[in-house]
Structures are given as structure tokens and as C-alpha cells.
């Protein structure tokens, strides 16, 4: 590993690789991703996942105040429902005027603080598999009023209108746990390839640029190699391509071997890690920015994340839990923070007994405070990862700490007993 600085970017975006992997191209790296007007994001890092434009249970003022997240993932399907009696209405988000504070429609509609970088995708994370499937010019999306077809043209128009900082063009995905057969996989690659070609050719004559992170499909490299080489050969030299959105980070070693030209691009993972162990795996593969749906789900289950990176220096006799079930009776009178020394907004003003009470009483604030804590723990975790990577022998130190982490903590999350808030 060497200390070097490489810059990649445009007027709107810059990505600086502060410490790149040397030799085998797919490895953890340190970087900084910055968009004009937004708070720069030191990588590796994660972005929050919104539901209908909001980080669940957190009002936008508290996103700014308590949530240490640099970015937010938004799904277009959360904004384009067609209520039965008003099926022809234009989705209001396409019509909202930007303001001096919220200079894009996406920020303006969701009141997301201006410091937060936005990422737009067609589908939620994770997405509900559609029984209808995609067509050659549309993806099937799931809105609050049901499944509907989103044409690739409407999606591009939406990206131009909403002006997210990062747009992920449509990909032909199944959103199913079943691996597609090779015929289907090949069609996924061909369609995504065509859609991206269309996307960039439309954008060529457009006055509104869209910072594009091209999808990398969750299918074997040999099936999508043509598509991926086109990214490197056609769209990279023209600076149309700004980054990669990977639905399977395990493809990074192949990318490093076969299309090394793509390596300087920032890499966003849209593959949901199921535990922090999986997060470390993605980081080790060279992912810069992660999306982590489990943060929202563990909060809803009444769990407080309880891990740190690097792990505690004295290895425990038994693996530690990754999260604590705050509904457990032992928290009823605990005046301690949710986890020791936690600097999050919930722990600095409240204690475990209050969260325990709120969960027992099914008060909405319990979920708000857990969200603040869980996002805070995750922010500290990534800061720890970056500090480790920044050491003299960063790669070795990270590998070592990752091994210790695997031994220090349990493999999976405990089952949370919290019930969804009533509201």
C-alpha cells in the first residue's frame, strides 16, 4: 500500500483517493467524496436509508442535529404513487420549487438538510420483488398504491428534475434471493447495457447534468463483461461516468483484474450487509460507501447496536453481542448510556432506563432515540475503520483488527423483542 492521492471528478463531484490499494486492486482504501455544497464524506463510510424521503422516525432537524450521516439514499418509487381518484396527477415532487436553502427538488421536497448528499435509485433498499417483472423499457416498482411500471425515460426525467447528487440509472434486477439462470442473467446485462446507453445519449444534449453511478449487476463477471468494458471504454473517457453502484461487492476482484480503468471511480454498495462482519468484508473488498438497511430494522426491533471498531483490546471470554435488547428487564433502572461512552445524541442526554420505558410504553420517541444511537454507533464504527486504515501499516492493521472483531463479537444479531411503535 502506498500513500498517494488521486483525484477523480467533475465540477459537481470530486473523489480523492487518499490511500489506495496497491498490487491487488480490490482492497480497502481511504478516500474523500465531495459534492458542491454538501459536507464532504470521508470514506469508507455509510449513508442513511430513507423511507418516503425521511430517515425513519427522525425529523429533518434531528437529522442535522443528531444523525452523523453524510448521505441519504432515496427511492423514486417512494414518491410516484398514483392514488386511485387522482391517478393522472403529476407526482408533486416533480413540481416543487427549489429554495435558497434546499437547492434541488429532492432536498426541497424532503427537507433533507443541505449538508446531506443524496443518492437516487429507482427502488427501495431492500426492494420488494415484483410479480410483474421488468420490460424492455421499464422497471416494475412498488409504490404505496401498488406495483406500477416506471419507464426508463421517466426515471431519467425524474433524475434530471430532482437533481440528486448521485443518480443510479435503472438496472434490470430481479430483487429475488434466487440466482437468475444464465439466460436471464445475460438478458439483465444486455438490458442494463442498453438502458445505460440510452441514459447517456439522452443526457448528452441535456442542459442538466446528472452525476451517474453505473450499476454493476449481481451476476458473474463473464456474463456482464461486455457491459462493464463499455463502461471503461465508452463512458469513462468522456467523464459521463462518475462512479459505480455495486449490487454485489464480490465482483470487485474481477473488476480489478479485468477492467482496472474503473478502479479510480468511487464505489457505492447497494448490497445490504446483514451484520457488521459483512460490512467489514465489503470494506475489505474496496467499497467506499455502504448502504445498511439493518440500522433501521434493528431500531424498530428495540435493539441498540453495541459494537466498536477496533474491538475492545482485551478479548472477551465469550463473544459479545452485536446489539442489546433494550426491552430486557435489566435496563429498567439503568442510568447508564446505551453503550459505554457513546457520544450519540440519545446517550448524551438519556439513559437506558428511559429507552426501556419508552419501548415498554410503545412510545414513538423510543424508536427515534434508538435511531440516533444506532446511526451514531455506525458512524463511530466507520471512523474507527478509517483511523485503522490511516495507520502506517494500514492494510495489515485493518486485517488484524477485522480478525479480532470476528472473534470478539457474535456472528449475528440477537432477536429484538421490541414491537413497532404505535402512532
Amino acid at each position, binding site marked *: 500500500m502506498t500513500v498517494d492521492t488521486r483525484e477523480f471528478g467533475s465540477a459537481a463531484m470530486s473523489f480523492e483517493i487518499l490511500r489506495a490499494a496497491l498490487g491487488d486492486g480490490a482492497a480497502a482504501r481511504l478516500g474523500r467524496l465531495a459534492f458542491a455544497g454538501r459536507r464532504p464524506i470521508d470514506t469508507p463510510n455509510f449513508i442513511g436509508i430513507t423511507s418516503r424521503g425521511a430517515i425513519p422516525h427522525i425529523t429533518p432537524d434531528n437529522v442535522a442535529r443528531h444523525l452523523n450521516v453524510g448521505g441519504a439514499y432515496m427511492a423514486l418509487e417512494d414518491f410516484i404513487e398514483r392514488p386511485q381518484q387522482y391517478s393522472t396527477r403529476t407526482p408533486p415532487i416533480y*413540481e416543487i420549487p427549489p429554495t435558497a436553502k434546499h437547492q434541488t427538488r429532492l432536498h426541497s421536497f424532503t427537507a433533507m438538510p443541505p449538508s446531506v448528499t443524496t443518492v437516487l435509485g429507482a427502488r427501495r433498499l431492500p426492494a420488494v420483488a415484483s410479480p410483474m417483472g421488468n420490460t424492455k423499457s421499464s422497471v416494475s416498482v412498488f409504490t404505496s398504491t401498488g406495483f406500477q411500471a416506471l419507464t426508463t425515460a421517466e426515471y431519467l426525467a425524474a433524475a434530471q428534475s430532482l437533481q440528486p447528487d448521485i443518480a443510479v440509472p435503472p438496472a434490470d434486477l430481479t430483487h429475488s434471493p434466487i440466482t437468475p439462470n444464465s439466460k436471464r442473467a445475460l438478458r439483465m446485462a444486455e438490458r442494463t447495457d442498453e438502458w445505460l446507453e440510452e441514459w447517456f445519449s439522452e443526457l448528452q444534449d441535456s442542459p442538466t447534468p446528472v452525476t451517474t453511478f453505473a450499476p454493476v449487476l449481481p451476476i458473474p463477471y463473464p456474463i456482464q463483461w461486455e457491459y462493464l468494458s463499455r463502461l471503461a471504454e465508452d463512458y469513462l473517457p468522456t467523464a459521463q461516468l462518475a462512479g459505480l453502484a455495486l449490487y454485489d461487492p464480490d465482483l470487485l476482484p474481477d473488476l480489478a483484474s479485468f477492467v482496472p480503468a474503473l478502479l479510480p471511480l468511487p464505489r457505492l454498495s447497494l448490497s445490504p450487509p446483514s451484520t457488521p462482519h459483512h460490512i467489514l468484508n465489503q470494506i475489505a473488498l474496496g467499497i467506499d460507501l455502504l448502504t445498511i438497511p439493518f440500522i433501521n430494522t434493528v431500531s424498530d426491533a428495540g435493539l441498540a447496536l453495541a459494537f466498536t471498531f477496533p474491538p475492545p483490546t482485551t478479548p472477551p471470554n465469550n463473544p459479545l453481542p452485536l446489539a442489546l435488547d433494550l426491552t430486557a428487564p435489566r435496563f429498567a433502572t439503568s442510568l447508564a448510556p446505551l453503550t459505554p461512552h457513546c457520544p450519540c445524541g440519545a446517550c448524551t442526554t438519556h439513559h437506558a432506563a428511559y429507552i426501556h420505558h419508552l419501548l415498554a410504553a410503545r412510545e414513538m420517541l423510543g424508536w427515534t432515540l434508538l435511531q440516533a444511537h444506532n446511526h451514531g454507533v455506525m458512524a463511530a464504527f466507520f471512523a474507527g475503520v478509517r483511523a485503522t486504515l490511516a495507520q502506517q501499516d494500514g492494510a495489515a492493521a485493518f486485517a488484524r483488527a477485522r480478525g479480532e472483531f470476528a472473534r470478539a463479537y457474535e456472528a449475528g444479531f440477537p432477536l429484538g423483542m421490541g414491537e413497532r411503535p404505535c402512532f
Partner: protein
Amino acid sequence: MASNSTFTSPALAFELVAKCSTTRARASILTLPHGTVNLPIFMPVATQASLKGLTPQQLEDTGCKLCLNNTYHLGLKPGQEVLDAVGGAHKLQGWSRNLLTDSGGFQMVSLLKLANITEEGVRFLSPHDGSPMLLTPEHSMSLQNSIGSDIMMQLDDVLVTTSPDKARMREAMERSVRWLDRCIAAHKNPDRQNLFCIIQGGLDLEMRRECCREMLARETPGIAIGGLSGGEAKDDFCKVVACCTELLPDLKPRYVMGIGYPEDLVVSTALGADMFDCVWPTRTARFGNAITKHGVLNMKKEVYAADFGPIEDGCGCPCCRPVDEEGSIGITRAFVHHNAAKETVAAHMLTLHNVWYQLNLMREAREAIIADRYPVFVREFFGNLYADPSNYPSWAVDALKGVGVDLLET
């Protein structure tokens, strides 16, 4: 102790700042163990030690200096043992300002159909396991002492005001007086917690007067008018409030329990009341309702889907204040509509707005009283709420006429 304009007792000071020269409205400063509070005031209800998803910091930012917790709920969860271990409800919820608690009796009677009142206390079946339980004045005091509220309420014998049983009404009134004596005797922290009496007597003004005299003789630091959120006609409600305030001393805070519609606040203030509480503003937020000076708007209606204005024009709450101002969130009606009944944040934003509306209404009322222009304020308030004066509620017109304000005068 009382000077010309100030009353002090061990855990409270009350300073009368101004009196309206027309109505009975008053502006005052109430100093409690957790800070000073400007009256008149609306107090939001954080039933289970939390205000519908707002963080205590968000609540503090609305300017709230005094909010409610419900003794009945806190007695069940987290329970007295936990409250004692944690060190009270302020500590439990991270709230450094003032708290007021009810006695728990009213909620028992209204939530538990099988509650049954005897001289000893309120008998009921535990909602946990159905076992018979008893809430006595002593037990209510003990719970409220554990909670550590700045203002505690006596246990009273609550009867719906519309009850036709005169004998039972008298019994309830007299029993409430006896229970106050038991509460005073059982109250362990009079140096740092205030116990307020509650005037009962239904709609019988003579009985109310009698109750006032008995309660006043017990010299509690503050006085509540109780039993009034039970569905009586608004005319009757106003008569009871007016009848009581007439007899109450100038230099003690007066709390009308359980009311909270904006019209109720404005009229009751004119009748000389200082403190109000109600769950309605926060409960209605969950159903997508925004309180505005032009009435309640339901944000779920399609007409707001593409309305990019604030929840209420001119509102100073963090959701609505102009987007270029410090602390503005920049929430639009469209975004509230988008998430109403779908994401909790929509309820949180409306709660923030509604609480702000209620607190601000009382702030403006107070300023008007100090400037001795409360009648003008009242007229403006009703003018905003009803486009056509012929729609003014007659109970409000009559009640205000009784204190020298003619709403229909042009």
C-alpha cells in the same frame, strides 16, 4: 406570604404582572422549582413521559416550560419502584423544566369502566392481572412524590358534570374536600413540590362556590377547576369557570383542567384562568391535523398533495418558519401529506407545529394582556377563525359579553 402583586410559598412564587382593564384576563409569572413560567399558559401532555415522538430538546425549543405527565400511566409503567430508583420523572425523561401531574384518579375513572369510588379511595381492577387495587389520596401523593412533579394534583372524586344525581354530586364535592386534607397530610415534599386543590361541584354554581370557600381555606399554593372536560355544554362550562374565578384570590395560579381547543383557551383566559392542558393538539397531529389560526386543516386531504407552502403561513415553528431563517426545517404541506399516516415523522412534524401553535397563542394572549389590548386580541382571534361572524359560537359570544367584550360589535 403576599405583597401587593406577589405571593410566595415554599415551592412557588406567583407574581401578577398585569390585569386586563376590561375582561378578567391576567398576565403573571409563576416561579416553580424547575424555572419560571409565564402565564397564561398551555401545557402539552406527555402522558407516558414522552411527547409523541418529540425529543425533550425539541419540546424545549418550542418554548415549553411546563408539561404534564399522567400519574396513572407512570404508576403502571415504569412503576413507582423504578421512579424511585431513577430519581423521579424529570430524570427519567431528561426534562430539566417543570412537570405537572394529575392525581391518577380521573384517568382511572375514565379509562377503567369498573372503577368504583368509596370514602377510602378509588377501587379498580388492575389492567395487568385483574386483581383488585385501591388508589387512595395517600397513595396518589406517594406516587406523585416519587414522580417529583413541580405541581401535584389532589385526588378528587370526579363525577361527570352532567350527572343528574344532586346528592351524589354533593357527596363527591364534600369528599374531594376531605381527600384534600388527607393529601395535605400525606404530602412528603411541600418544600419542593406544590399541591393544588381541585374545585368540584358539577354545574351547580352554588355548590361550586361552597367548594371554593372550603378549598381556599386549605391554602394550597394553586387552585384548579376540575370536572369540566366531561361533555357539558360550553355555556355551562363558561359559567362554572366565571363563577369560580370570581371567588379566587388574585395572587394564586388558576388551572382549568383538561381543556385545550384554541377558542376554549382564549375565552377561559378572558374569564380569568391561567393554566390549561389537553391531549387534543398532540393527539390530533397523529391523524394528520394541523391547528392554524384559520381552523384545523387535515393534511391528508388531496388538496395539500402539491401545496408547497408551510403548514401555516406566518407560523414561527421550526417546520414553518421561512426557510432562510435560522433553525427553519422548511417543511411543506406536501411533505406532511406525503407521509401522513405513513411515516412517524409526519406526526412528529405536526406535533411540533401544533404544540408551537398552542404555546404561541398563549404568548400572544399574554402580550395583549400586558399591553391592555386583550379585547382586541380576542376579536382578531375569532375574526381569523370564522370568516363570517354569524358563525361565531354563541357560547363564546355570551361568555365574552359577560366580561365586557362584544364580539359582534362592529
